[in-house]
């Protein structure tokens, strides 16, 4: 078989940071524009065209900020777990960059989810914080994100840090469903899931459409920020390598 004529699969070629950079640069502008469009449409729907809830009134609009961030909080973690596999199994060098870039974004979405949930909880339940199943699960997810970020910072060497974080991410991924299940056990106050469930959504279409648009907007925002952060991380690593090389040349060049 002629090996040279075959072009390797795209994800293999992306292992080359230069190839990745070219692709990222090409994608970034359209992604940013799409993000803006989706946010404009979604926010217009959320604040102008969608009706106020007959029970909750205007506060229901917090949902359009709150729920998509909860989706993203989980989605980002799933993406990190996939990148962790890429790091451990395929030793894909860009996978650990993606992992590192994603963690603070995931933590950010989780924090947005917690804070907006708290703002929603005050008028609805009369309390800023309630130790109920879903709030608590999201809080634990937030703590796991923080642990992963702390582990990144604690180990200096990027390759070693990447593998340690990959293992932690996967162990966390195995544990998350168990944590979710166990926390659901002492479930108290939060309403049951109402969008993704068997038998279709129970919220009305006039609210669902803007909600889904906001979900798309969040997803696009995440992808754009992820690409920017990955480019930055690659650049930072390159600078560090060049600095080491320069220092090396200086110390050996002075003697010779």
């Amino acid at each position, binding site marked *: 078989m002629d090996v040279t004529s075959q072009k390797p699969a795209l994800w293999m070629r992306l292992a080359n940071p230069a190839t990745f950079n070219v692709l990222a640069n090409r994608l970034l502008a359209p992604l940013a524009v799409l993000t803006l469009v989706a946010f404009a449409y979604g926010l217009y729907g959320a604040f102008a065209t969608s009706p106020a809830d007959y029970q909750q009134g205007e506060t229901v609009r917090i949902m359009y900020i709150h729920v998509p961030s909860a989706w993203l909080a989980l989605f980002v973690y799933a993406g990190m777990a996939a990148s962790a596999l890429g790091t*451990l199994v395929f030793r894909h060098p860009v996978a650990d960059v993606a992992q590192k870039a994603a963690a603070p974004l995931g933590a950010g979405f989780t924090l947005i989810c917690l804070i907006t949930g708290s703002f929603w909880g005050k008028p609805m339940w009369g309390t800023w914080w309630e130790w109920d199943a879903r709030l608590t699960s999201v809080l*634990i997810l937030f*703590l*796991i994100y*923080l*642990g992963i970020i*702390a*582990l990144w910072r*604690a*180990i200096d060497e990027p*390759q*070693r840090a990447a*593998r*340690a974080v990959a*293992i*932690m991410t*996967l*162990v*966390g991924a*195995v*544990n998350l469903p*168990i*944590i979710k*299940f*166990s*926390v659901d*056990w*002492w479930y108290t106050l939060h309403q049951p899931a109402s969008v993704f469930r068997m038998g279709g959504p129970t919220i009305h279409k006039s609210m669902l459409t803007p909600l889904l648009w906001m979900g798309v907007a969040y997803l696009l925002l995440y992808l754009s920020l992820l690409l920017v952060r990955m480019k930055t991380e690659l650049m930072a690593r390159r600078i560090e390598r060049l600095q080491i090389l320069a220092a090396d040349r200086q110390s050996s060049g002075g003697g010779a």
Partner: protein
Amino acid sequence: MNALLAILRREWLLARRIGAGAELGIVFFLILISVVPFAVGADQKLISRIAPAILWLAALLATLLGLDRLLQADEEDGIVDHLLMSETPLSLLLAVKALAHWAVTGLPLSLAAPLLGLMLAIEPQAMMPLAASLLIGTPALTLIGLVGAALTVSLKRGGLLLSILVLPLAIPTLIFGATVVKEAAAGRAYSTPLLLLSGVSLLMLAIAPVAAAGALRFARN
């Protein structure tokens, strides 16, 4: 098999000689329990109500305490290199190390639990479930800790980070363990949380040694 027994023996001897043996573990729990009334007041009813929580938190604390030295000491004096080169699978060796750690933390707590429970005024019918839940659940805590210890093995001051990594993962164990005692104290059936607790422990037994072995191996490329 010999290697495993040798490790178990070594860990046991080390624990005894550096003053971290099982009896000291029990003293630690006794102290923790004595501190609680000073913090919450000498209210027998309140203490009785939070007793399962106190004992489970004590188990969590005791597991965390020695964890950052569990592998680090071996890393520093080169034992980890020997473990890595051994013919016996690393995951198995690490499982034995976890067993040794549990033998001086979780096991003594489980055995002393009825006595400590007496001091905390736990309902008599909850005494055996309490001991059983600790006996079944504390291995999970140690195993989760093993992964954290392996991940932070190269860090000089990894203790705090270790706790941050490990504690969220220990939540299911805590929930099911404390529920066993609560249900038993209320005179209700407690087999469901006990079975779930066993499930968590078995799952951790399956994944934690492998994950820890991977972490140790990857730490040196």
